[in-house]
C-alpha cells in the first residue's frame, strides 16, 4: 500500500511542502499561463480560427493545459503526497464524466451510431 509507506514518517510534523519548486519555476508557469490566455483571447478574434472546427478542441486543450499547470505546480500536486492526487483526480474524473454524460443526455453532444435512421 502506497499510503502506508508514508506512515513511517509518522511524527515528523511537517513533511509536506519542502520539495516544492521555487521562484524560478513559479514565474515560468506564470508566463506560460499569461501566454496561453493571450493566445486564447486572440483566437477568439481571429475569424479563420474561431470559425474552424479546430477552435473548440484547441480552446479546450489550452484551458486544460492551464488547469493542469496550476494544479500541478501552484497547488503542488506534482510534489505532494500521492494521496492528494487521488483525492483530487478521483472526484475530478467523476465530475467530468457526469458533465459529459449530461451533455449527451441533453443532446449537446452526440455520437452518430447509425442505429437510428
Amino acid at each position, binding site marked *: *500500500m502506497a*499510503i*502506508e509507506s508514508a*506512515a513511517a514518517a*509518522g511524527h515528523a510534523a511537517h513533511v509536506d511542502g519542502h520539495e516544492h519548486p521555487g521562484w524560478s519555476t513559479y514565474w515560468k508557469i506564470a508566463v506560460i499561463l499569461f501566454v496561453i490566455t493571450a493566445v486564447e483571447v486572440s483566437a477568439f478574434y481571429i475569424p479563420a480560427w474561431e470559425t474552424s472546427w479546430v477552435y473548440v478542441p484547441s480552446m479546450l486543450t489550452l484551458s486544460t493545459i492551464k488547469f493542469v499547470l496550476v494544479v500541478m505546480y501552484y497547488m503542488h500536486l506534482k510534489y505532494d503526497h500521492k*494521496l492528494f492526487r487521488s483525492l483530487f483526480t*478521483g*472526484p475530478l474524473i*467523476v*465530475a467530468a*464524466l*457526469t458533465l459529459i*454524460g*449530461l451533455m*449527451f*443526455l*441533453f443532446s449537446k453532444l452526440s455520437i452518430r*451510431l447509425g*442505429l*437510428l435512421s
Partner: protein
Amino acid sequence: MATLVAAPPYTSTATESANTGLWSWLTTVDHKRIGVLYLITALVFFVIGGLEAFLIRAQLAVPNGQVLSADMYNQLFTMHGTTMVFLAIMPLSAAFFNFLIPLQIGARDVAFPRLNAFSYWVYLLGGIFITVPIFFSVAPDGGWFGYAPLSTKQFSPQINMDFWVLGLQILGISSLAAAFNFITTIINMRAPGMHLMRMPIFTWMSFVVQFLVALAFPVITIALVFLQFDRFFGTNFYAIGAGADPLLWQHLFWVFGHPEVYILILPAFGLVSEVLPTFSRKPLFGYPVMVYSGILIGFLGFGVWAHHMFSVGMGPIADAVFSLTTMLIAIPTGVKIFNWLATMWDGQLRFTVAMKFGVALVGMFTIGGISGVMHSSPPADLQQTDTYFIVAHFHYVLFGGSMFGLFAGLYYYFPKITGRFMSESLGNWHFWLSLIGMNLTFFPMHFSGLLGMPRRTYQYDAGQGIEVFNMLSTIGTLVLMLGTLFGLINLWKSWKSGERASSNPWGAPTIEWTIPSPPPEHNFDELPKITSRYPLWDLKGTVIAKETTYAEEAGRVQLSAKQLGIPMPNPSIMPLITAAGVIFMFSGMLFTDSNMKLAVGIMIAGAVWWIAGLYNWLLTPLEDAH
C-alpha cells in the same frame, strides 16, 4: 504471529464529573456521545416516519379511504420519504460511523471533533425544521424527489415546499461536513499497522459512503439552489414559461439520488459483514473482494442515475446505456451476497438477534436486488416504474436491507455502546414481527403494482383487483409497528437495566472489542499496533477469541484520560451555537414572500450569529496547551 488480545478489560469506567448532565451533552465533542445522540435522534425520526407510513397505509386499507384528505396524504408521503431517507436511515448509519469508525481504526477521536458535533447539531435542528410543519398541515407536499416544475412557486405557491428546499440544504451541510471529517479520519487517524486492507469492513464501507456523500451532495445542493432561486428570486431554471427543461432537475436530482441509495445501503452491508463472521466463528469470506465490490458499487453508482428516468423519453441509446450500467451493478452486489453465504458456510452459526437480523438482510435484500434487476430493463420498467412494484422493490432494499442491517448493528454493538446487552427475548419479538410484518406489508405491493396501481395516489376505486393486496399491506404495517414497538421497549429497558456486558461479549475479532464496554472517553489507553485483519482472532490456527464475561472483568478500574495523561479535546458549545445560527439564517428565507425586510434581517442576523460562533470556535484551541 503475535496477536493482539484485549488489553485487560475493565468494567467500571472512571468518569470525570464534567461528563454528566445536560450541559455535557450540549457541549460534547466525544465521537461516542455524538454517536449516541445520532442514534437516539434518528430513532425518534424513524418512529415519526413510521407513524406517517401508518397513516398512509390506514388511508389505503380500503378503496376510497376516508382517513386522510388528498393534501394531507401528499404531505405524509412526501415527509415519510424525506424523513426515512434523510432523518432516519442516514443518521442511523451516522450513529455507527461516529461510534465505530474511531474505535475500529484505533483512533482517539475523529479528525475534527467539533466539526463532528456541528454536523450533529445541524442535523438535529434541520430535522426539526423540516418535520415540525407536518404538525401544522403545512409540510412539504411535492414528493421526496421534489420534481420540478411541480415544486416551483408557480405550482406550489404555499410555504410547504420552502421547508423542504431549505431543510434539505441544511441537512446537506451536516452530511458534507461529516463526510470531510470521516474521510480525513479514516485516511489519517488509523492506528499504526492498520493498513487499508486490514480495516474492518464496516469502516471500509463507511469510507466509500463518505466519498459518495462528498460527491453526490454538491449536486443536490446546486439543484436545490436553482429551485431556491426560482422560488425566492424569480429565476428561470425550472420556469416552464422561459423554456426551461424540467429534466434538468430530474438529472441533477438522480445524479445525487442514485449514489444516495448506496449511501443508505452500504453502511448496513458493512455492519452485516461484521455480524456474520462473529456469529459464524469464521472470518469474512473474500474480504478483498468485499472491499473492491463496495468500491465498485460506489463508483458505478455515479453512472446509472438515469435508470430512474426510463419513462421520460431519453431515447433508445440513453435507455440502453443506462440499462447496461445498471445491470453491471448487480454483479458486485451479487458477489457480496454469495460471499456472505460462503462466510456462514461450514461455520458455527449462533443465532442471536443480531445474527437473525443479519441473516434476514441477506434473504430480504436478495428479493429487492432481483426486483431491481427487473426494472433495470427499460421496457419492463415502463410497466413497473411509478407503481407499487417499485415501492415494494425499494422497501425490500431499504427496510429488508438498510434497516435490518442497522438493527443487526444495533443489537451487535449495543453492549459496546452501553455496557449492557439488549434483551434477546424482546429482541426475538422485535425480529420476528419485523420480518413477518415487512413481508406482509411489502410483498403484496409487488402484485398491486403489476396489477396496475400507481404510486402516490391517495385513493383508488373499488373493483380494481387490488383490494386484497392493499388490505394485506396495511395489516402488515400494523405487525411491523408492533415489532418496532418491541424493539423500542427493548432499547429502553436494556439501556436502563439490561444484563451487563463485558468488553468482548460476542468473541468478536476487531479492536473495538479490546476496550471496556462502554469505552472510556479516550478509547484506547495506548494506541494499538495492528498486525492483522482480525487482531483478536489468530487466523493461522484455530484459536479464536472466546466471549469474555462480565464477571471475569468485574472489579478492575479503568483510568481516566486525565489520569493517563492523555490530552482530550475540550467540550465546546460553539458547534451548537454555530449550527443554530445556520438554521436561523436559513429560516429567514421563509419570509421572503411575506416580508422581505424581515427575511433579510433574519438572514443577516443569522449569518452574523454563525460567523461569530465560528470565529470563536476557530480561535479556541481544541485542547488545552500542554
